[in-house]
């Protein structure tokens, strides 16, 4: 016998059926089926221009699908934006004169969507403090946001994304331009949150920092996709098949590297360089 709570815990955090997106007459991908189970972490990989960010935007309701359906946290995606889904955008440094403290980045997650006179609600302050504590940002949360390092800002953005304890966490290149220590810190925060039973869907161009915590990989390339465990997907045979050109996966110094993968855009229009003519 299962109570309703158990049933909801077992329901997928994300369910995508037959989804496809066309943009400028080019099919980014189509026929995508994906379930993300509670506590599961599915990394989205692929060359730039393959539609990884577009997938996240579709899940948030910010991008309309050309076909198919998306259910996020048990509900069909209809409206623009969804507070029940956490979203961690790509790390961009804030301008130095940003008129906010580090703490206020987290506050935006708690009350940034509310219209009306900006009067704090009871409990908001405690919620913000708890989130700051959870992401280990207590020591720098009261400094001006613009003076914090990229890693410190990104930790606070994680706090912002977790404001409503989302059961699905989307991350768009969460580790870009972070140093190794901060990469590890952010990876650990994502991992810890999905262990509470949330699904996690980080988009990344480099699998190595997250390889230890990844359950499955969704690899988008060439208008197609492959879904499976890292062992299944990250092989020379599977990726060569996906890209349609020879691609090599090898392990160098404990890191997986993919060699010879063309970018989505440059693959579309290859042409001879001028140096070819000069050589003749």
């Amino acid at each position, binding site marked *: 016998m299962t109570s309703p709570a158990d049933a909801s815990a077992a329901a997928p955090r994300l369910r995508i059926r037959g989804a496809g997106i066309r943009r400028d007459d080019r099919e980014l991908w189509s026929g995508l089926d994906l379930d993300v189970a509670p506590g599961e972490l599915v990394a989205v990989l692929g060359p730039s221009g393959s539609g990884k960010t577009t997938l996240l935007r579709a899940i948030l309701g910010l991008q309309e699908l050309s076909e198919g359906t998306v259910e996020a946290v048990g509900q069909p995606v209809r*409206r*623009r934006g969804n507070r029940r889904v956490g*979203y961690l955008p790509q790390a961009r440094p804030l301008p130095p*004169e*940003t008129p906010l403290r580090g703490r206020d980045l987290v506050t*935006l*997650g708690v009350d*940034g969507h509310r*219209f009306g*006179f900006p009067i704090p609600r009871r409990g908001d302050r405690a919620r913000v403090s708890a989130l700051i504590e959870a992401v280990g940002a207590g020591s720098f949360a009261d400094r001006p946001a613009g003076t914090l390092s990229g890693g410190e800002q990104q930790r606070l953005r994680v706090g912002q994304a977790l404001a409503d304890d989302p059961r699905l966490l989307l991350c768009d290149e969460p580790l870009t331009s972070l140093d190794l220590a901060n990469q590890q810190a952010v990876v650990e925060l994502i991992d810890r949150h999905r262990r509470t039973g949330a699904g996690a869907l980080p988009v990344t161009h480099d699998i190595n920092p997250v390889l230890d915590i990844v359950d499955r990989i969704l690899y988008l390339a060439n208008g197609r996709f492959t879904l499976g465990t890292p062992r299944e997907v990250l092989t020379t045979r599977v990726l060569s098949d996906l890209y349609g050109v020879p691609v090599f996966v090898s392990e160098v110094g404990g890191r997986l590297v993919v060699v010879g993968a063309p970018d989505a855009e440059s693959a579309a229009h290859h042409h001879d360089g001028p140096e070819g003519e000069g050589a003749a």
Partner: protein
Amino acid sequence: MNVADIVQAMFGGLSQYGEILALVSNSVWAGAVLGLVGGLIGVFVMQRDMAFAVHGISELSFAGAAVALLVGVDVVTGSIVGSLIAAAIIGWLGARARDRNSIIGVLMPFGLGIGILCLSLYNGRAAGRFSLLTGQIVSVQSEQLGWLTGICALVLIGLLVIWRPLRFDSLDPQSAAARGVPTVGVSFAFMLLLGLVVAVAVHIIGALLVMALVVTPAAAAMRVRSGPLAVPVLAAVFGVVSAVGGILLAVMGTLPVSPYITTVSFVIYLVCRAIGSRRDRIVRSTSSSATAVPQP
């Protein structure tokens, strides 16, 4: 003009200062409210990198007022119409910063040209002509002053209502949209509020000098503070001090008000910049010494 003339122009009215103050009290109030709202909205202007847009809107607001002057309808209404049209165009076509700047660059000379054309065709009192460009608050009729003050109050309420979503959108539009903030609507509402403030400012300080009340106070505040409450409050205080201080200084003599307002606001900015760079140095030296500590 010798020194005695200059002193006379600047301080000639000092003996009747009390009576003059009574005459201009409405102007002082209008200036105070505009300074308050201008300082507040300026914080978002700075964060959204829209100082140039403020200038563009003010030139079209000037054009609207000049057209109104020529065809004989209310000048304040004309400036508001011009301002809102400009704000709507910039908000609609200029979502990205680069597009925005080119659109403003195209609109601004056109607006100025229309305005100058209308002013040259206008046969009325010459005194009113260039006050739209350089401002002369004390010559605005008291009925219109009431309107200007009311518009500022309206903007203040509107700004407070959208304050948190606007702050989110100004900092990180992607995250704001992801969390359900209607970013397009918020941006558009902000442009309309900005248009209204600029239209008021055109009458009080003049189209060419609007930025002294809508950009400078916020820029000064952001040099010295970074709190979400401290910056807007300080910007509003700077705006009020500039506007009211400028009017109070100007009515001592016979010189126009606007140069006083721009000067006060500029001096505040200089002081804040000096304080800010000193603070930066201290922060940098303490943080570098802090990192030096753990090393053997």
